[in-house]
Every structure is written in C-alpha cells, then in structure tokens.
C-alpha cells in the first residue's frame, strides 16, 4: 500500500474514507492550545506510535511558540494599542506567521509520512483548533464492496 499513494491527490482519488480519528485538546495546563499526545487505538495498525507522537508534540511546540507571552508579544501589543490597532491592517502578527509554519509542517508530514500509510492529517485551524482530525483511508478496490452493498440495498428497498 505504501507504493500506491504517491501524492495526496492520488490518495484522495483512489482511496475511500473509512474512518476519522479525532485528537482532542489537552487543557491540563490552561486554555493554551495543546493537543493530547495519547496514541489512539484505531491507528495502532497504521502507523508507528513514535512517529505520531512526534508529530503531535511538534505541533504543540509550534502552538506554544505562537502563544508565548514574552517581550516580542508585548511589543506587538503595545505598538498596536498606540496605533489604535491600525497596524494589524499592514502587519502580520506572530501568531499568523507561526500558523503558516504549522500549515507547511502538516503538509510536509502528510506527504512524507501519513499519505504513504493511507492517513491524512487535517490542520486543526480548519476545525476551529478543537481537534486534530486524522482521516483513515481504505483502498477503494479492496474493502469497498461490503459496505457498498448494504447501502445499495437501503436505497433500493423503497
């Protein structure tokens, strides 16, 4: 299966969505953005635990960097206040810069690690920063027939 999906587009076209796993937020340290690093059982057969945990830990580091309260963020805040927040119209905040880095990182991880295993990670920002959605794809040819027949029977038995 690793050789079948050369890129993400091919994955989406040739495979069918079998299941989705959601990694929830970890609020143990407050309202800052962190995701649970617990390895979900549905992925046990699909990917190595260390790889997955590394991805989540790196994402957590990125988010911590974005929300870090320090000298630069204070400077940004005070400058914004002094200019009546008009500066946000022309300047990109540090948070947005880090989010771009995160998007690139997720894209890279998907291409290198997850797509070859028939998985796909959705950027949490597309889910309102609530969850990391991991889509599990099955090869369309092999497992499609069983679930297809039951729904066909449902739709025809009027």
């Amino acid at each position, binding site marked *: 299966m690793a050789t079948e999906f050369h890129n993400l587009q091919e994955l989406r076209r040739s495979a*069918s*969505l079998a299941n*989705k*796993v*959601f990694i929830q*937020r970890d*609020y*143990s*340290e*407050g*309202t800052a953005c962190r995701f649970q690093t617990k390895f979900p059982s549905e992925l046990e057969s699909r990917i190595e635990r260390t790889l997955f945990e590394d991805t989540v830990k790196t994402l957590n580091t990125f988010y911590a960097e*974005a*929300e*870090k*309260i320090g000298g630069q*963020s*204070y400077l*940004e*805040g*005070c400058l914004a*206040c002094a200019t*009546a*927040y*008009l500066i*946000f119209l022309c300047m990109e*905040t*540090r*948070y*947005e810069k880090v*989010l771009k880095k995160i998007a690139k990182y997720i894209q890279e991880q998907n291409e290198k690690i997850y797509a070859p295993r028939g998985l796909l990670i959705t950027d949490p*920002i*597309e*889910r*309102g*920063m*609530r*969850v990391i*959605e991991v889509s599990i794809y099955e090869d369309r040819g092999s497992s*499609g027939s069983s*679930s*297809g027949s*039951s*729904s*066909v*029977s*449902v*739709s025809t*038995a*009027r």
Partner: protein
Amino acid sequence: MKNCEYQQIDPRALSVSPLSAQSHTEKKDQRPRRKWEVFPGKNRFFCDGRLILARQSGVLPLTLGLIVVTCGLFFAFDCPFLVKHLTVFIPVIGAALFVFVVISLLRTSFTDPGILPRATPDEAADIERQIDTSGSSTYRPPPRTKEILINQQVVKLKYCFTCKMFRPPRTSHCSLCDNCVERFDHHCPWVGNCVGKRNYRFFYSFIISLSFLTSFIFGCVIAHITLRSQAGKSLVQAIQESPASVVELVICFFSIWSILGLSGFHTYLVASNLTTNEDIKGSWSGKRGSEESGNPYSYNNIITNCCVTLCGPVPPSLIDRRGFVPPDEVIPAASSASEMELPHFSAKNDVNMCTQSTKDVLERMVNSGSQTLCSPGTPKTTPLVQELPGTAAPSPEPPPSAGCPGLLDSRCPFFSRSSEKDSLHSINPAFRLASPSPSLTRTAVTLNGAADVGFMPLHPGSARDEAP
C-alpha cells in the same frame, strides 16, 4: 421492537443516485460560496465577509451617534472659545481622543470575538460515541459535562447542544448570536457584538478612552462656561450664549458615571484575569478562599494578568469567513431536492431558517431546560425560542408508526435532515435535536432509503426502519 437507527450512508452510493447527480450539475452552475454566506450563527456580515456584527445591532447606532454629536458640538461651539482663551492643544487632544474612541468602537463591533465554529458531523458523532448514553429512559438527556484538571483544579466542561461539542474552558454560548465564543465576557448591546477573546482589548481600550474623552469634554465645557461667566456676565447669560454646552454637559454627566464605573470594573477584571461571565456567576470566588487561588487562569500577579489580557497574542479568526465552502458541502442544491421531495418545505428556501425553526419547535417540545446550558451569563438573554416554527416545519406529531415510541417519531424526521455526506448517524435522539446545517440533498436520499416516519404523508408506501 424496532429501533430508529439508521445506516451509515456510504458516500459512493450517494454519488450514483440520480437526485444528487442532478443537484451536482446545479452546484456547478452556481458560483462558489464563501463560508460567511452559510454561517449558521445569527450574525451579519459586511464587505464580503470582512466585517462581522451581531444580527441585532443593538444600540450601536445610538452609541456612535452620541459620541459623534457630542464631539461635534464640542468642536463647533466650545473649542473656538477655548482656543482663544486657553490653548490650541484642546481641540488637538480632543480630536485624538475622538479618533481613538471611534476606531476602538468600530474594531470592537466588527471584529470576530472568538467564535468557535460548530463541530462537523463526524466530530459530533465521535464525541457522542465517547459519551455513555445507555439506559436513559427519559426523553430529555441529562446535561453532559466533562471534568478536567486545569492547574490542579477541577473545571467542568459543558456540552453545547447547538454547536455539538464540549465547550473549551472559559467558552460560553451567546444566545443572542447563537455562537460559542471563546473567553466569553458578555454580549454588549452598545457595541452590537459579543465581547470575547479576540476583541476584549479593543473593548477595554474603547471604554478607557471613552472615559478620558467624556471627562475631557466635561472638564472643558465647565471651563468654558466658567470663563464666560467670569468675564462680567452671570452664569445664566453664559449658558444662553452657548446652549450647546448644556447639551454636552448633560450627556457627559450621565455618561461619566456609567462609563467610569464600567472602566473600573473591567480594570478589576483584567487585573484578576476574570471575565464578566465568570464574575457574575461567581465561578471562582465564594467557593474557595481568595479569588486568586480560586481562579486557575490567573497568574497571581496583577501586572502579568494585565499584560496577558491586553497585550497577549491575538489568535486569528477561527470561522474563516472569507474562505470558500468546499464543493461537497454546498447546501443550496437542496432547494431543488426540497421542491421535489418535500413540497411543504417550499415555503422557506433558506435551509438554515428551516432547521432553526424546527429546532425551536423541538426545543419547545422537549423541555428547553437543557438549552439553558448554552446561554449563561448574558445580561439580556432573550427567550430561547425566538422564532415561530412557520409553515415549513413538518408537524411535530406525525402519524404513529409501528415499532417506534410515540415521542421518538417526532424526532426521527429532524434527525435525518441533519446528516451530511460522511457522517455516522447519531443513535442518540438528543444529538439530533440541535442540528444546525443540514443538507437536504442527503435528506432526499435518506427518504428514498431509510424509513422516515415524519414524512409519512408523502411516502405512505415507504418501508420503515430498514434493518440490514
């Protein structure tokens, strides 16, 4: 006894259905829609999604009008005299304050306060699977809460039935805007928007600068009248010469009390890292010793709390207003399906309005007590059920069907409407109650397939409760 469970819809089976094929071609003819156009909350959008406002703009025009009128009178009538007798800096300072106030106000009003997008059907199904729903014999499900530890303190997360997710800490559902807002402070009618995580600092700078502005104008007007009456004239004569000053005095006098009080209150909140919502509900005080030890979000240092709240990083808007709706989730094709399959929906083409009204009907039916979880702390909470169901909603008492308990019948039709393409169907009736954005295309297909007791009048011959 047959149950009302439904089959998971296989997306590939749907793609061969003639109905969706027809709607597919219709979708291609329509231009791609932006996400703000299909936003389920009660908000209004301007400039193609760049600006967001609550549906009820409240008294925002009044606020703006008062500020502009007062400042206008000040610049027109008081400033010439004061420039002559005092200093030219008075209108300069006044203008700077005025500009700052107006910009802060507009930013507060038109910024997304931190709205959380509603959970996708897959997420909602996943959460539901993790909740134990077995053995519930009552139709009204118990309020769902989840306890977590934040900084070694137990915090209860409540489940939001409208947004179908567990609300993150400090998040609250605003009933006026029908959205969950992060770090929800309050819904301010003066500003016409909720005040939450992303626009709290704008709101705070608005009220602080407004306090300065009103105090400044008040002081200047007093000075103006005093100077006039000192030049050999009586007070009454001075007032007659400059009647606008009296208007300004009255407005400023009444504003100062409330604005200064509000500024003081919010300064206290900022210093202790609290929200108005938490303060009103007494979440952290009164239960434990001192407030600082009770509040798990506080840094126990006034300066740090202030800096974090006012100068911390601003997260971006999560609702992605100007993004395009992905083609497989486009709803408008449902209108064709609705005309064909559900003639009594044709009265309302707007899908969102339909489900909103349907949801309201259900809420009324099923003891809306559970919905109170979704709207705490808003000072002007309007009644939960605001809209009449209208003619479009199907009758809540469909003819009884074999196998289903009577009350569950009424929920089955609404449940089927809530499904989207890849979702696993919800077994729990409670999770079907508040479905925000249905796809009627799928409804039409499920009508053909699975049994739908609510639409019995249309399909009297349809089999029900298809069990594989």
